């Protein structure tokens, strides 16, 4: 056992941003104790660091699970609507789904930052929400395609932007997730401070 082995500093900073301000000491202490007593002596520095980062990412995904699921479900619902009930004009749907997506990403950042009192938590939540939502939407699209792939459906898919858009757009959402999560995070952290003052 070593009391000097240290996990990646950035991962600890990330953990601090994700957790409620009162929970960081006890939770990071538990992780550090496990890292030093059980993981590092057996696995060595690099694999112990990997373990630590995985644990921190687990905390991040748990904190954004609700928002990520909602975001993914919204994208899957939009895809299903476009494929099975294609409109003549996509403008209204596009506007509604854009506002909904923006709202979910900002809200995820706001809530995370409100909880932890750190604006960085909003950035992390926005990215995690977009990543998780993207994953869900890709899996959802594959599921829909596995069941319905007739010529009429494929024509509707081509008319709504094509399969390329279905599978690349979720990945491109990471950047808006970062920006909008940060916006929500700044608002959430400021609101919490204002509320506690």
């Amino acid at each position, binding site marked *: 056992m070593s009391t000097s082995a240290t996990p990646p500093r950035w991962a600890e900073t990330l953990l601090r941003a994700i957790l409620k301000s009162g929970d960081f000491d*006890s939770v990071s202490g538990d992780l550090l104790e496990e890292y030093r007593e059980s993981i590092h002596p057996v696995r060595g520095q690099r694999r112990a660091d990997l373990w630590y980062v995985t644990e921190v990412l687990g905390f991040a995904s748990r904190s954004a699970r609700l928002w990520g699921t909602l975001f993914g479900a919204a994208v899957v619902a939009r895809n299903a609507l476009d494929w099975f009930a294609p409109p003549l004009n996509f403008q209204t749907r596009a506007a509604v789904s854009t506002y909904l997506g923006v709202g979910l990403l900002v809200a995820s950042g706001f809530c995370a930052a409100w909880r932890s009192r750190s604006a960085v938590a909003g950035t992390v939540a926005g990215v995690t929400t977009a990543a998780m939502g993207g994953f869900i939407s890709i899996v959802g699209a594959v599921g829909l395609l596995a069941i319905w792939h007739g010529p009429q459906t494929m024509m509707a898919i081509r008319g709504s932007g094509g399969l390329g858009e279905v599978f690349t757009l979720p990945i491109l959402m990471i950047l808006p997730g970062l920006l909008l999560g940060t916006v929500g995070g700044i608002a959430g952290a400021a609101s919490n401070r204002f509320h506690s003052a």
Partner: protein
Amino acid sequence: MADILGSFEQAVLLAIVRLREDAYGRAVLKEVQSRLGRDVAAGAVHATLARLEGKNLIASRLGPGTPVRGGRSRRFYRLHPKGLHALNDARMTVDNLWHGLTWPLKGSV
């Protein structure tokens, strides 16, 4: 009626019962891992502890840290009477389900 507990919640509550005064986050994690016989993410245990505390099944207090933790505090947990009641209910439900059957089950069912 007492809260209905999931199996992971039962594992965490029983770890707190077994550990008594030493039931802090990492000790609960190790106990749960040992009883379930598999790796469990620390985040899963912490999320469950927070949820159980939110349901008033357990209570917590902060205690002193140790050098290996870099001096960071430990959060110790103890069972509330409501948590004890929920655990007893969970056990009774399982016993009722198994009543009249011999374990392990044998042959084709």
